[in-house]
Structure formats: structure tokens, C-alpha cells
């Protein structure tokens, strides 16, 4: 399997990382060496093997449906790039 520069630009778009044509070309070569390494996986017979998502076989805990958080929005928004009236500011989304 080999990625083309267009593949790289498509993935970069999905990942929301601006990538120029020149960067896509350089990245493509590096990614392909990594995918060559990963290819060793493909020949392994895993029929009937259950996928392992986590090290411990535990189920998610449930907690009481009660408010446990305190209101810290002032502290959290003090470190935001742009805030006004308790709202995070971003470029206009709806015309």
C-alpha cells in the first residue's frame, strides 16, 4: 500500500491540519515508510481472535446522578484565546 500526495492532503483535511503541496509531498514519503512497517501485521491470521481494546476486563462504573462539579467557568475562560460575556468567540459560522 502506498499513499499519494492527494491521499495525504485528504487525511490532513479530515484532521484539520493545513498542509501545503510541498509539505504533503515530504509527509507522504515519511508516512509510507511507517505504513511499510505496519504492513507486517497484515499476514497474521487473526480469525476468531477477540479484539482487545483495554488491558483490564472491567466495565464502566456508574455514579449517582448528582451534581459534583463546581462552577469554575471564570478560571477556565481566563485562559481562552477569545471570550466575551462568558462565551468563547470563534469566527462567524452562520451567515
Amino acid at each position, binding site marked *: 500500500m502506498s499513499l499519494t500526495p492527494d491521499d495525504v492532503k485528504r487525511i490532513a483535511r479530515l484532521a484539520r491540519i493545513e498542509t501545503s503541496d510541498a509539505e504533503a509531498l515530504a509527509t507522504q514519503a515519511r508516512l509510507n515508510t511507517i505504513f511499510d512497517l505496519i504492513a507486517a501485521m497484515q499476514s497474521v491470521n487473526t480469525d476468531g481472535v477477540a479484539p*482487545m481494546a483495554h488491558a483490564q476486563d*472491567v466495565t464502566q462504573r456508574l455514579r449517582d446522578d448528582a451534581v459534583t462539579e463546581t462552577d469554575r467557568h471564570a478560571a477556565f475562560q481566563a485562559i481562552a484565546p477569545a471570550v466575551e460575556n462568558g462565551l468563547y468567540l*470563534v469566527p462567524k459560522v452562520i451567515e
Partner: protein
Amino acid sequence: MTMLQTSLSALAAQLAAGQISSRELARQYLDRIAALNPAINAFITVDAEKTLAEAAAADALIAAGRGGPLTGVPVAHKDIFCTDGWLTTCGSKMLSNFVAPYDAHVIQRFKAAGMPSLGKTNMDEFAMGSSNETSHFGAVKNPWDTARVPGGSSGGAAACVAARMAPAATGTDTGGSIRQPAALCGITGLKPTYGLVSRYGMIAFASSLDQAGPMAPSAEDCALLLNVMTGFDPNDSTSLERDKEDYTRDLDRPLAGLRIGLPKEFFAEGLNSDVAAAVEAAVAELKKLGATTVEISLANSQLAIPVYYVLAPAEASSNLSRFDGVRYGYRAPEYADLNDMYSKTRAQGFGAEVKRRILIGAYVLSHGYYDAYYLQAQKIRRLIADDFAAAFKACDVILGPTAPGTAFTLGEKSDDPVEMYLNDLYTIPANLAGLPGMSLPCGFDSKGLPIGLQLVGDYFSEAKMLNVAHQYQRVTDWHARAPEGLR
């Protein structure tokens, strides 16, 4: 140097007896950091005022008779742990202006134990690297040879302990990030069983693999630190509800009857001959203490790197989607619309290795590739864990090298991601299985660089691993050696 060469238990005893104050101790380490850090670059943030205030509070606790086992002993924290009021960068431009508004659970525990912070240590960006060269704040230099890397991603933590700029440090390990730098810097480091240490407030890389642990000169130090770090935390959904253990309880047990498993795949082609010789000498030493050895096979471990480079980037691509320039951290100065703001912020805020891993992750999770990559990797992950389960029927602990070689020179592998990834050949399998692993010093190569020995234990066998390491360290002095010329 005397105070700076003292074990944590001896430091704690001197503090409790009033022979030294926490403030005096912190001051000594801060002075040493000021003298050595310009050459080593182990710390991203040092704040003497905050450190000394925390030390004063520790002195008050001791004076009031309310000190714990390590109260007053200072530690350095990897810059991956959110620390209230401290810059917390994760080694990235993306968080270069991020002052955390809360404490990670690990930080809360050290604070509750009365242990002052000496500062935040340098690391590979978002813990992605094996050399500490991907840090936005510059590479860390290995105190044994400043032309060489300290390993990574907890490179600053390992280097500051090796140079005795801190008596101990915290690290995190996703694929070897505690053990490999511990090996390359000649210190002891332990990655606990997955779920023992809370990940709350620890900036996430690959959540099913990430685990925090202690880094210090000796196994005894690590056991004391593990007592502080472990414990159930409702804020981490993968934190395990278990009774609290005392990890020092088995340190003094004799090793007679211990069965050590030697995986033949860890002593195969690709292992540096000096490393192989030092590890074999350590095995001989452990046999003298009464241990026996048995050859085991971890046949699927050779697939650990391919599996890891699917699973870890997949989890990272999801975890790192939170860095969007909206709520905290870096935002690009100029952009046209919302999507452009995201794309430029992330293009400018992330370094090359982090971007590569996000792209790999986005690709293996994308439509049409999920089964071939992500699901196949999760299945092989099971096979790797099954190999360990079979091996632990025949042995009590698995032993091998931590890394295939010793510290390499700065820049030597930074242009070849695959060559860099191979450094974690022996450490990644334990992360995939969720097993505890540790590295301890076992000698030096022909260039005078430290060599690390790795122990991998069964789930929750940290006390046994620390027992083996401590008994080895009672009859050897590799762990007590510090680099010359750093006085």
C-alpha cells in the same frame, strides 16, 4: 554532593529528625538546577518562589507532627501533568501559553503527601518520541554525554534525576517513555499495571496505554514514590478500585526460588553486544542470589511495533482533536473562517512528529481502512497479551534489555521515524498487554554510557519486581553512580 546523593528514605529521615528543613533541601536542588539546567535543558519551567512556598508548608507539617513518609522531599514533575497555576506545555507550542487551572490527580497526591515540586520537566511533544528531540522547548542533553539524547519521552525527568537536579521525578509511559529514558540515563523507572495510577489531568496521548510512574536512582525510592502515586480515583474511568498496597513490603525478601523468564525474542538480532553482555551478567548475579532461569517465547512481540503504530496514533488523533484554538492554548493569529482557524492553528501549533501521528491515526480510522488496520491491530494486541499470560505460567518475572542500544547522538535518528520507533521494541509489548515494567541500571557500554535492564511482571506484581530490583541493587552499585564532571 553528599545531600544530592542521598536516598529518599534517608532524606525523609533527616527531614523528620529536623537535621535539614524542606526549604534548605529545595534550595540546594534549585541551586543545582540553576547551575546545570542551561547545559542539560531538563526543565521547561522552574519557579523557585512556588517551590519554596510548598517547602515551607511541608516544614510546617513536619513541625506539627503531621508529616508522612516523604513529607518535605522535593520532586520534579513531567510537563504532561496539569499543575494548578503552573505553565503546563506538554512540550508543545500548542500549549506554550497554557497555565493549568487545576491539578492532575498525581499532582494532588504529591501535594497531599507534602512533597514540593521542583518544576516541570522537558519531554517529547505530547510524549511522542524516544529521544526528547521533538520538544518545542529544545532537546534535553544526556548528563552522561551532552552530545547524546537522554531518551524519551520522559527525557527531562530521567536527565534531571541522573544529574541529581532532583531526588526523584514523575514520568509517563505509553510505549516505553519511562523505561527507555531511565535506561539511557542510568536511573530506575517503573511503569505500573495499567489502571493503578489515575490519568486524570495527565494530558492524553493514547488513553488505553498511557500510565504514569516513578523515576529515581533506586528501586527502593521507586517503591516509596509508588505508594504516593497509586490509588483509586473516580475522575478516571479506567482507575482500578483496589485495596491500597505498600510497595516496600517485599523489598527485603530473599530471591531463592525466583523463576526468571528470558524471552528468546529479546536476545535476538538487533541487540547491541555490550547491552547483551551487561544483561547476561545481571542474570548471573541474580542466579547467585538464588534465582533460576527459564527460556520463554513471546512470539508475537515482534508485531508489537506495527500494532502500536496503529493503535497509539488512532487514539492520539482522537485525543488531540481537542486542540482547536477555541478554549485554551495556541490560536493562529490570522484566518478566514472557523475551519481555516482550526487548520492553521493545528498546522502552526503541532510539530512534525505529532502531525505525522495524527495523520496515521486519522487514516487507519477512516472509512474502508478500519478493519484492515485498527481492528487487526486490536486482535494482535490480544495475541501479544496471551503470550505473556502463557509465559507467566512458567516464570515469576520476565527479564531482558530495556532498549536495543545505549544513548545515541543528537540528530542521529531524528530524520528517520522508523529507526527511532525501533528503540521501543522491547518496551511496547508490556504497554499493549497493560503489564507493569521497569528499567534499572545494569552496567555501562564501552563508551561509558549506562545500560538498562528491563523487568516485566504479571498484573499487580509491582512489589515483586521491586523486590527483585532492590535485591540486585543491594549487591551492585550501578544505580548509585552519577555522571562525573557535573559538580
